């Protein structure tokens, strides 16, 4: 086979594979949008079709908003994810700074513990944390949703690795200029670490916005529910699952993430490829 032929062939093969992969990934989303746009009768019809014969998106959305207080759930989601992220940063940055730039006895041991902490899955500590929250009388509150996640060992690790690449001279220059150690964290390290903070923010916000497990365990009150629980609300209703409004609600709750992604696409990719940044 000549070269002129082999290159387009391989390019085509590559694209076919990529498209197939993308289709596989997108299929549930497309199905969701399709279902959200169909009236109940079409959803349960035996024939498979993606494009609804009769567009019922508006009705489904209306029903979704009527049945559940979706806006309230979205607000809960925002409050919880933002609180978690802000607190995580407030803990992780000073800790990472100490681990990366300060010299003290036991630093390596502490860092080893941080690495060890990454290995522990959150489900493993769920029961003890639940009991602690129970003892503290904090179950069924925003605090129950936020507090267990404020110390992110992954965040500390990621920030520490990034801070290692910040030159020591910069820290020393800040000390000569009279900036305090905490000042250095916020005025020097934070601005230098914006890409890492963004990357971590993306992981953190996505993980906690979509978290179903923890809110399900600690919440009772309807008005504290986070977006994923809102979707479950449609499944649990006694009248049987109404898939149209359920999918419409699912669309609404992932919309903020999709919109945020579209706005910050470049940052997002930068963040994911952070390991490649010197």
């Amino acid at each position, binding site marked *: 086979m000549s070269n002129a032929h082999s290159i387009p062939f391989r390019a085509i093969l590559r694209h076919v594979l990529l498209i197939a992969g993308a289709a596989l990934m997108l299929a549930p989303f497309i199905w969701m949008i399709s279902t959200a746009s169909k009236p109940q009768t079409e959803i349960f019809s035996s024939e498979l079709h993606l494009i609804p014969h009769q567009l019922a998106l508006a009705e489904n959305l209306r029903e979704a908003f009527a049945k559940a207080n979706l806006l309230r759930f979205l607000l809960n989601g925002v409050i919880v994810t933002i609180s978690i992220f802000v607190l995580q940063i407030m803990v992780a940055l000073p800790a990472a700074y100490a681990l990366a730039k300060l010299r003290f006895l036991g630093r390596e041991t502490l860092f080893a513990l941080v690495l060890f902490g990454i290995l522990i899955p959150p489900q493993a500590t769920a029961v003890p944390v639940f009991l602690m929250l129970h003892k503290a009388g904090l179950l069924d509150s925003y605090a129950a949703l936020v507090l267990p996640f404020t110390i992110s060992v992954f965040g500390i690790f990621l920030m520490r690795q990034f801070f290692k690449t910040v030159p020591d001279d910069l820290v020393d*220059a800040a000390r000569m200029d009279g900036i305090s150690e905490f000042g250095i964290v916020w005025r020097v390290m934070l601005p230098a670490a914006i890409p890492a903070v963004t990357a971590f923010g993306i992981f953190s916000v996505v993980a906690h916005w979509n978290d179903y497990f923890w809110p399900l365990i600690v919440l009772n009150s309807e008005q504290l529910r986070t977006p994923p629980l809102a979707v479950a609300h449609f499944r649990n209703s006694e009248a049987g699952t109404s898939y149209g409004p359920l999918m419409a609600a699912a669309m609404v709750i992932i919309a903020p993430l999709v919109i945020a992604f579209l706005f910050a696409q470049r940052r997002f990719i930068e963040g994911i490829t952070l390991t490649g940044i010197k």
Partner: protein
Amino acid sequence: MAQIELSAIRKSFDGADVLKGIDFRIEDGEFISLVGPSGCGKSTLLRIIAGLEPQNSGQVHIDGRPVDAIRPSARNLAMVFQSYALYPHLSTFDNIAVPLRMRRLSAIERLPLLGPLLPGRRAKERHIRADVEGIAEQLDIAPLLRRKPGQLSGGQRQRVAVGRAMVREPRAFLFDEPLSNLDAKLRVHMRAELAELHRRLKATFVYVTHDQAEAMTMSSRIAVMMGGELIQAGTPAEIYNHPNDIRVAEFIGSPKINVLPGRIRTDGGVDVLGTALKLACSAAAGECRVGVRPERIDLGTGPFSGTVVHLENLGAEAFVHLAIEGAGLRLIARLADVRHLPAMASSVAFGFAPDAVRIFDPAGKRIELRVEQPERIREPAHV
């Protein structure tokens, strides 16, 4: 503006002694260069003066007051780093303004959103602006005030770093190889600018470098460090002409000083390559090393001879490399007159005046000499 006194400074990292008892006094307004090979502890000493690194023992006094328990910023010294260490997210203006803001604004006034609304902030900010602009004017960086460090050239960054140091009128300036990231031409230019700055500010400068040309041209005194010890301090001419240790002699001067094996006789005379020099010393008989600077070697006449093995003609001067038969030695002679170079592979006679000779004992310490008879070198006793 400040006199800095170091007494018995010791420092070790992980059990390795990096500074082994440094005693040194830097006078008010001096331009001191700390020179020495890589890893000899220059930066560490500078950081101890700055307060960025605690010493294991010993004291630092500034203007007669001990500063060991005082934070770096409160010592009121300014430091210029090799990497310049500018805040990458701040404009040139803000970089220079940082030390002033830290000093003149209260913690509340520095808060990002609330601060600018406070009543006193405006007036203070106006003063800071005036000061920063004054410095920028002096350093020729006024047009760059809005740029970020990433948009500046190496020389411009260097100036901004100097500006950040100057703006708070420190008692002394500490420089850690500030020119080593610049290209050769810019380095020569900045050298002149820094020397000029020192004359204008009349402040104490402590300047770390391993570039001896910088040290020789700018400083009022040079302190030579080797292996964690300060082995000699003196004016550039003293260090060059009267090194008290062979390591100093070899470190300062380019090309390196020529070192020949010699012998001190029991009567105090000195023999080199089997030739007696018109010199005497009062040291004990034994081996010694004889140093002669390349420019003090006279080609054409003299009791020694060597073969030309390499020629370096730099236009204004030339270096003649000589191999000495039988001794397995190489010498370098500097010729000021490049029009009369010896031919390659030819044999040339050479000699040197007795006052060009420095003798060091096997441990490297200089041995005092008496010149017996000016100028002439005795003919070989027997060859």
